[in-house]
């Protein structure tokens, strides 16, 4: 599997959402660019600072550093972000794409995390809080179908949620 740019793809896990927004694409784009209005409580992506622009977004008390990957004005923003106390190597990539239609504007957001950035739970490298979170989120082993559906098929998680 390769990306369009010819770089060999690595295995990733992903989350995707698609929403319809009533409003002309220009208006939606202008809002999407205002990271402080929806992406985070405060901060900016530095969209005017050229390729690889570094930004900072604070959301719910968590500060993330961002690095701009792609800016296709009026259509797509892609960036990597990671906890500013952490490592860029563990960054996930966010792609926000606007798709014009005859009716509402479609917004597709896709966040991918490299599989290598995920610490396997059973090796004991996961933090206690993360394990506690997992127990809450996943319940018993009876939810294995969801895990398999998410990971093996690489389907968007919103489909898997239907099974919960």
């Amino acid at each position: 599997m390769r990306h369009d740019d010819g770089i060999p793809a690595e295995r990733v896990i992903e989350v995707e959402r698609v929403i319809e927004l009533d409003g002309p694409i220009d208006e939606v784009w202008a809002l999407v660019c205002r990271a402080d209005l929806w992406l985070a409580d405060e901060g900016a992506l530095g969209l005017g600072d050229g390729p690889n622009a570094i930004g900072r977004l604070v959301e719910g008390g968590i500060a993330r550093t961002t690095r701009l990957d792609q800016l296709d004005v009026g259509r797509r923003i892609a960036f990597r972000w990671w906890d500013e106390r952490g490592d860029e190597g563990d960054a996930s990539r966010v792609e926000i794409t606007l798709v014009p239609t005859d009716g509402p504007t479609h917004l597709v957001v896709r966040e991918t995390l490299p599989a290598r950035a995920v610490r396997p739970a059973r090796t004991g490298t996961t933090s206690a809080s993360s394990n506690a979170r997992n127990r809450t989120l996943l319940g018993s082993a009876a939810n294995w179908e969801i895990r398999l559906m998410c990971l093996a098929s690489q389907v968007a998680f919103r489909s898997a949620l239907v099974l919960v």
Partner: protein
Amino acid sequence: MDATRPGGLDEVLGALADPTRRSLFTRLATDGPDTATNLADGMTVSRQAVVKHLRVMAGAGLLSPERSGREVRYRAEPEVMDDAVAWMVSSGAAWDRRLDRLRRQLGPSSGSHG
């Protein structure tokens, strides 16, 4: 962190990339531990091929082999996927919140699918 370590998510995803292995894993997770002989029964692939698939998944930490008389029974271990799924759950919930915020900025008439 060593991505090639058994049980690393990369290896788990690789092991699950094959449809035959996924169906074997599904059967073991649904019906409980079983042997290669029983699993091969009713499948279009040979017992030998099934053994090979089971070993790949065991190597990735998805299955635990258990000795049972002269045969080996394999038990499904879906927990190796927990951290990945937890990330998907929390990241998905965060995007739902952010997209709600964005929608509110545009006014109340915007709908959602997905």
